[in-house]
């Protein structure tokens, strides 16, 4: 019965003319202060894809692909939509705050969320938290990068790190143009597969751990002898450590249910989401407002896509 209701709801809403006013490719651009060193991007309940591209310029530029303004009939009377997390000060569903050190870009929860493409000077350090439902594509960054994704796939390419990357339910495809020796790189994944490519001549100490799945590599790793000290506890059976080209910065890859693939990186392999590494299941349509549960990177309960919708199509 509940499912029937959902289906009826979907039918009803799909028949309605699009609410609000749709803006195609609306741009918001600004130049941060000179002292800014980092950019923090957070999307909590966005259904669109987020693309973040590093540029050589000084400007931050955001394009909302198909942004639907919330229905604001009462705006003339002094009312405006409120969101948890901030005020829309861009006109495209984002709240942007800037202080001396950093710029914070926050996607405001909106059911008709847009896809966003964000251009950012690539010398900034970048922190991305996407606990929405879309994919995250991040490309061309030369500084420290920290990414946590909850639902979608994350494709992160042409980065140098140090990188701290985490995905909960999606795949994680990472391509390093080089691996920074400044600080460790750490990549973790709960349910998705993890494919990491690094230059063949990278010097690194590797730590790879997978609880319920495989680890594969085509790199020439000098494996450590397993520690058989009976005082040592090992979580999971597959913990592999070793050195690459004599050792160097720590690279740690840990997964629970997905595979780990560590491979030689080409100059710039073109990872698309139809990448041959993993066949990509069809993308579910945007769900309706009724949602059930899922977990965010921090485990707090949130909402889950309504699977029944798929059957309807």
């Amino acid at each position, binding site marked *: 019965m509940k499912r029937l209701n959902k289906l009826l709801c979907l039918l009803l809403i799909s028949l309605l003319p699009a609410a609000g006013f749709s803006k195609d490719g609306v741009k918001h651009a600004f130049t941060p202060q000179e002292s800014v060193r980092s950019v923090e991007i957070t999307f909590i309940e966005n259904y669109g894809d987020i693309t973040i591209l590093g540029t050589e310029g000084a400007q931050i530029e955001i394009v909302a692909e198909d942004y639907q303004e919330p229905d604001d009939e009462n705006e003339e009377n002094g009312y405006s939509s409120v969101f948890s997390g901030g005020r829309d000060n861009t006109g495209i569903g984002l709240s942007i705050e800037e202080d001396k050190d950093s710029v914070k870009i926050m996607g405001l929860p909106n059911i008709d969320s847009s896809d966003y493409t964000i251009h950012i000077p690539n010398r900034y*350090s970048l922190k991305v938290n996407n606990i929405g439902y879309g994919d995250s594509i991040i490309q061309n960054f030369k500084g*420290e990068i920290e990414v*946590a994704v909850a639902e979608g796939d994350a494709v992160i390419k042409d980065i140098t790190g140090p990188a*701290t990357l*985490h995905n909960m339910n999606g795949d994680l495809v990472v391509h390093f143009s080089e691996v920074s020796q400044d600080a*460790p790189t*750490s990549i973790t994944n709960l349910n998705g597969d993890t494919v990491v490519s690094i230059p063949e001549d990278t010097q690194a100490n590797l730590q790879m751990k997978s609880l319920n799945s495989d680890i594969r590599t085509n790199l020439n790793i000098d494996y450590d002898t397993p520690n058989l000290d009976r005082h040592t506890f*090992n*979580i999971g059976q597959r913990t592999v450590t070793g050195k690459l080209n004599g050792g160097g910065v720590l690279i740690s890859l840990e997964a629970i249910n997905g595979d780990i693939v560590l491979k030689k990186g080409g100059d710039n392999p073109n990872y698309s989401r139809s990448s041959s590494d993993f066949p990509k299941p069809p993308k579910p349509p945007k769900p309706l407002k009724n949602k059930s549960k899922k977990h965010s990177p921090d485990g707090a309960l949130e909402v889950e896509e309504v699977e029944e919708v798929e059957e309807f199509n």
Partner: protein
Amino acid sequence: MKCKKVSRNLPSLWENSLETTLAEEVRRHLGQCENCQEEWKQLGTLMADIEAVEEVQPDPRLRKNFFSMLEEAKSGQREAAARHEERTLVEPVFWKQARWIGSMAAGLALLLGGFWMGRLQFFSHMEPTTVDKGANQELEALQGQIESMKQMMAVYMMDQRSASKRIQAVSYTDEISELSPDLLKALLERLNQDDNVNVRLASLNALTRFAHQENVRAVLVDSLPRQTNPVMQIMLINLMVEMDEKRARGSIQELLESAATPLEVKNEALQGLGQLL
């Protein structure tokens, strides 16, 4: 002036190499900010330690003991001798001695110089000096001091804004053989409170190395109900099973019963409970 900037300038202030206006500003801030005062104090303790190490260095007695120790090793002791003889075949004794002194001097030079050159990169460049079983007391004392400095450094660095740098600080404990209470506290804070799951996982791995100690075991048991990320929950459940830690049964049971627990965690919890009977 921001705490971050003050913190960056503290070592220079200690060295008296700070520009007067800046130094004044930093001092003024120190007068007002308790956190920075605390950091200043910690820096003081660290410097005192470095100075203590310095006193040991130019001691001819130490040198003499080194030679006699080498002689001893050469002329008999079973395991040690076997190892030393093997080396003697490849390289003349002179080089061996030179290398001992060299590595010792290099270690000390790095110890003193490295800190000033860049305290953040200090330990990654330092080769720990190897010590034979028969090593004399001075050397052990020195080793102990290096170890305690590493501990302090890890504690000192573990609270940084960058997640990678925090992981780096956590990974320094790989080279430490004993956990000081301060270090345990710092690792625990990362394990239970860090907002980045990779940092939390790194400190879990670091603490797992000491899980044969009862105090560490107890805090790990205590950590499971505090974790909200499924990766951490699953790793901890597996560790509890590996350690055959029956005290964790209660919190595993709770995870199993809670509606908020994701399915993949419940699976592990169910398996875990079965094994912890």
